[in-house]
């Protein structure tokens, strides 16, 4: 994983996780019969090592925002600052390469003959040489719960669905992202594999990687993320801490989103929803 020394072009060492400052970003898809405005002046910030749940109905702009943050699409207005740096120039491009994006159903992108080669693809494209590539692959596969000794030589298509999902994630982790963007990472996973993926993301968060997670699973978002960014038709409805409290209007109701199960439970039990636990284990501790 990146150390405090890995920084762009001789600046002072950066914290492990990248800071994001998204300022009034707008983006439209031009190819339709009439342009579709997918993002309208979206602004939010994310501190180094922070974790942000990207929420919103289908079509609200979540995937588009992740693509823009990763630099796959250029904004038509507004800017995305990474570690406080504005776009333009080699230093910014170097930071962009430290942003990892895990697409929806990422196992559709597995293509190599062995798991090792698939995971190595990213680092090799970045121009890394052996043994740095080998180290990155080992580390990433281990972090993703795929011990290299067991999985390195296996054919990706011979793995189970859950293993493929984790292999695709390893392919992104091998590039040592300081900002990890995940687009619906839990879709199509069985409950046990889902918990395994949650554990991996918690480990990354503990290491200080900045996380941004688009998901419809409000309970996993609540467990993994300190803050939220709620989009509706490309606009920001809410940004920042979750904001549940006994008195205020429920922040998610306007977007047809239910509150996390544990928040609902805390309300029903007459406890302060702002202090609701993040996981079943935490809840059990509080209620036992």
């Amino acid at each position, binding site marked *: 994983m990146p150390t405090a020394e890995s920084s762009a072009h001789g600046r002072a060492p950066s914290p492990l996780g990248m800071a994001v400052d998204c300022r009034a970003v707008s983006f439209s*898809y031009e*190819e*339709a019969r009439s342009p579709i405005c997918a993002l309208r002046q979206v602004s939010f910030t994310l501190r180094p090592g922070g974790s942000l749940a990207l929420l919103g109905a289908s079509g609200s702009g979540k995937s588009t925002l992740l693509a823009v943050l990763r630099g796959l699409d250029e904004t038509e207005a507004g800017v995305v600052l990474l570690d406080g740096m504005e776009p333009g120039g080699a230093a910014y491009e170097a930071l962009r390469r430290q942003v990892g994006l895990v697409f929806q159903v990422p196992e559709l992108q597995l293509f190599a003959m062995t798991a090792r080669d698939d995971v190595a693809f990213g680092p090799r494209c970045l121009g890394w040489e052996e043994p740095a590539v080998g180290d990155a692959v080992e580390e990433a596969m281990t972090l993703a719960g795929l011990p290299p000794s067991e999985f390195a030589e296996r054919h990706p298509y011979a793995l189970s669905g859950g293993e493929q999902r984790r292999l695709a994630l390893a392919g992104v982790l091998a590039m040592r992202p300081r900002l990890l963007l995940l687009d619906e990472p839990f*879709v*199509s996973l069985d*409950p*046990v594999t889902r918990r395994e993926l949650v554990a991996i993301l918690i480990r990354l968060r503990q290491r200080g990687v900045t996380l941004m997670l688009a998901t*419809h699973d409000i309970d996993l978002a609540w467990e993994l993320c300190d803050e939220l960014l709620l989009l509706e038709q490309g606009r920001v409805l809410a940004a920042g801490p979750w904001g549940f409290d006994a008195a205020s209007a429920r922040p998610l109701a306007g977007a047809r989103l239910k509150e996390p199960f544990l928040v609902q439970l805390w309300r029903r039990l007459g406890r302060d929803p702002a202090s609701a636990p993040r996981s079943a284990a935490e*809840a059990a501790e509080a*209620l036992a």
Partner: protein
Amino acid sequence: MLVSISGLHYRYPGARADALADLELGIGPGELLAVVGANGSGKSTLARLIGGLEKPGAARHAIACGHDLLTLAGRQRARRDVGVLFQNPDNQLVADCVEDDIAFGLENLCWPPDDMQARVDEMLCRFELSDLRQREPHLLSGGQKQRAALAGVLAIPRQVLVLDEPTAMLDPGGRAEVLAAVDDLRADGLAIVYVTQEMDEVVGADRVLALEHGTAVFAGPVAELFADVDLVRRLGLGLPAAGELAVALAGRGRVLRGLPLTLDALVEALAVAT
């Protein structure tokens, strides 16, 4: 029984083991059968077989809507009475716009144009797609695609509906719509086979079938499956959120009466003096 299957075997060409072995299944009008199991347990294979999309390897009998799934003619007829919705709508949307895609099946069945238009309008309305009727499918979000695909499957009147993780890519609002639509269809008398990884969605089913490596290891009431926590874990499953909390509490020495599967039941169980 709308679907009656006994002793079903299926093996993918070139595979070393059966994807389904000795499977038994029965479902009647208005019933919702949930099918659960880890990735690779055979759920999607079973869905395809019930829909007449694969030829069974062998079976004592395999009947869907009165059609024999062991014969080609039977499978072809079954495909009309049994609708199947897959996980990935990209594989099911074929036309240039949503409206045309919904009409696709009806056109193939030679519906009169007026009837077809009325049915398409009904489906667009039911799935809140009216504003998107002219939209190109590749410009829809994942959830919108799934709704469009479902509308297309249901445009043809069905007796049985097989849904393979239909809400996987939907937002909670879309998920609620699909579940409400499924409830309506159940009330209309359709038999529904509902493959899912979402344990909260299993709670409302009449019965649940749990698969492990292609065999049925449980068939019966939902509460009974969830009560066997060891089995649930072994199968790669979880419990509904209320159940997971109850199990975590038991681990800390606070055992609730019964295993609550919903928020209401959990609140009630917690209210009982310890």
